[in-house]
C-alpha cells in the first residue's frame, strides 16, 4: 500500500493559499513530497483564473469597499468568490498516479471520486463536463488545475452555505442586474450543501469522505502530516511573487473588451432572455445565462446547456447548441433549439459586426 499525505492548512488569506499552491506543486515536481491531499479555507476573496483580467471579471469597487481580497490563481478556469462558507480541496499528484496524460480524463477521474464523496453525505452529486460537480443541474463544486512537468495540481471548491447575492456583487457575471430575479436565477444555478441537507453539514465528515473517496480511487492510504521545510522555503519565495499587485495585474484587459450582451425575444414557446459575457479578444463566448417565461423539462436542461457553452469559440456556438439538443430528450412545448440560437445571435450581433483584430 502506498502512503500519501493529507494536510489541512486552515483559514488563510488568498495570497498565502495561492503561494502554497505554487510551493506544493513545485515540491511535488521535485519529488520532495509524496502525493498530497490538502484542505484549505479562504478569508473573503475574489479569485481569478490564471489567464483572466480583474477588470473584466470582477466588480473591483465593490471588492475594495467590502474588504474582499483580489488574487490570481495559478490554475485555470473562471473567477470565483470564495469565503469561509466554502471549503477547498486539492490534490497534488504525479502523472503516474493517474495513469494517463490526457487532461480531460484526469479531471473526469478526480471529479468522479469527489462526487462520490459528496454524494455519501446524502445528495446526488455528479461530474458535469467541463469540470463541475453538480447536484440536479446546480453547481456545488467548481474545479481547475495546473501542471508542471510530471506534477499535477487539481483543486475544487465545495459550497456549504454560500452567499449567492454576494457572489453576484463580486463577480461581473451575465445576470440581468442585481434584481430579485437575478438572485433567484443565480440560486437555481448553484447548490448549497446546507440547503440540500436541511442541516449544517459536519465539515469533519466532508473531509473524511473526500479522503476516503480518493484513497479508494487511487488505492492508497492517507496519513496526516504537516508542511515540510522545503515547502516552507518554496512558499516564502512564491509569496514574494504572488502577494504583489504585479501578480494580480499579470493579465490586464479593459472591461470593455468583455461586454455583457443581452437580448430578449418572443417565440411561440415563450419569452426567452439571454445574457452573455463575450471575450472580444478571442471571440469566445465565456458565459451565458438563459432565463425567461419558458417551460423546459427536465428543468436542469438550461443549466446543462449553459455549462456546455462555457468558453465556446463563436463559430462553434451554433453546432454546440444543436448537438446538445440532439443528444437528449427535452420537452420544451413549442420552443426549439433554433430559438436559443436566434436569441443568442441577437445578443452577439454587436461584436459580430466588429472587425477581427
Amino acid at each position, binding site marked *: 500500500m502506498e502512503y500519501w499525505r493529507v494536510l489541512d492548512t486552515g483559514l488563510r488569506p488568498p495570497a498565502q493559499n495561492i503561494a502554497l499552491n505554487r510551493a506544493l506543486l513545485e515540491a511535488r515536481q521535485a519529488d520532495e513530497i509524496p502525493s498530497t491531499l490538502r484542505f484549505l479555507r479562504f478569508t473573503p476573496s475574489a479569485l481569478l483564473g*490564471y489567464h483572466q483580467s480583474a477588470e473584466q471579471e470582477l466588480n473591483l469597487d465593490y471588492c475594495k469597499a467590502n474588504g474582499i481580497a483580489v488574487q490570481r490563481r495559478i490554475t485555470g478556469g473562471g473567477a470565483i468568490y470564495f469565503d469561509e462558507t466554502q471549503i477547498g480541496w486539492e490534490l497534488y499528484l504525479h502523472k503516474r498516479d493517474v495513469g494517463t*496524460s490526457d487532461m480531460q480524463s484526469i479531471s473526469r477521474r478526480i471529479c468522479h471520486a469527489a462526487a462520490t464523496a459528496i454524494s455519501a453525505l446524502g445528495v446526488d452529486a455528479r461530474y458535469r463536463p467541463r469540470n463541475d460537480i453538480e447536484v440536479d443541474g446546480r453547481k456545488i463544486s467548481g474545479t481547475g488545475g495546473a501542471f508542471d512537468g510530471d506534477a499535477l495540481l487539481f483543486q475544487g471548491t465545495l459550497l456549504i452555505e454560500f452567499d449567492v447575492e454576494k457572489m453576484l456583487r463580486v463577480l461581473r457575471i451575465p445576470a440581468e442586474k442585481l434584481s430579485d430575479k437575478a438572485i433567484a436565477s443565480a440560486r437555481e444555478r448553484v447548490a448549497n450543501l446546507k440547503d440540500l441537507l436541511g442541516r449544517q453539514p459536519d465539515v469533519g465528515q466532508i473531509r473524511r469522505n473526500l479522503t476516503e473517496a480518493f484513497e479508494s480511487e487511487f488505492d492508497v492510504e492517507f496519513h496526516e502530516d504537516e508542511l515540510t521545510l522545503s515547502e516552507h522555503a518554496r512558499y516564502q519565495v512564491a509569496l514574494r511573487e504572488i502577494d504583489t499587485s504585479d501578480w494580480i495585474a499579470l*493579465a490586464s484587459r479593459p472591461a470593455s473588451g468583455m461586454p455583457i450582451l443581452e437580448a430578449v425575444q418572443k417565440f411561440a414557446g415563450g419569452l426567452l432572455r439571454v445574457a452573455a459575457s463575450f471575450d472580444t*479578444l478571442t471571440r469566445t463566448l465565456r458565459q451565458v445565462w438563459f432565463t425567461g417565461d419558458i417551460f423546459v423539462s427536465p428543468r436542469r436542461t438550461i443549466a446543462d446547456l449553459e455549462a456546455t457553452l462555457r468558453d465556446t469559440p463563436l463559430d462553434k456556438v451554433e453546432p454546440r447548441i444543436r448537438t446538445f439538443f440532439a443528444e437528449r430528450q427535452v420537452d420544451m412545448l413549442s420552443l426549439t433549439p433554433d430559438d436559443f440560437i436566434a436569441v443568442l445571435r441577437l445578443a452577439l450581433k454587436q461584436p459580430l459586426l466588429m472587425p477581427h483584430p
Partner: protein
Amino acid sequence: MATVKGCNIPDDLYYNVENNVWARREDDGTVTIGMTVYAAALAGQIVSCTPKKVGRSVEQNKSAATVESGKWVGPVKAPVSGEVVAINEAVTSSPGTINTDPYGSGWMVKLKPANWDGDSAALITGGAVAAAFEAKMNTDGFAGCA
C-alpha cells in the same frame, strides 16, 4: 515528415520529447518554438495562451509561454535558452490555432538562442524522431491523434 499514431511530427524540426515541444532554426539565426500536435491533443481545445514578453530571457526547459485548456494551466518549456525576440500575437487572439496548425501559424515564441549548438545537442531531430515519440506515446497510454 513522420507520422506517429496518426500524429504529424515533422522530422526536420528539433524536439524535446519529454516536454513535447519543437524548435526550428530560422535562416536569420533565431529559433521558433511551439507545442507538438501530440501535446495539443493531450491538452484538448486550447482557450488561452500567454507567451513571455519580448526582451525576457528564458532558460532551456523553463516556461516560454503558458497555455490553458479545459481549465488546466501549464507551461510550454523552451527547448533552448535565449532571449524572446518575437511573440505570436495571433495565438493570443486565436489560441485554437495551436490545435489546428501547431507547426505553422500556431508557433508561440521566437528566441535569439544563447547557445544553439550546445543546447540543441539535447534535442532530437531527423530519423530518431518517430521512435522517440512512439515510445513516449506508449508510456503515456495514448491511443492516437484523431
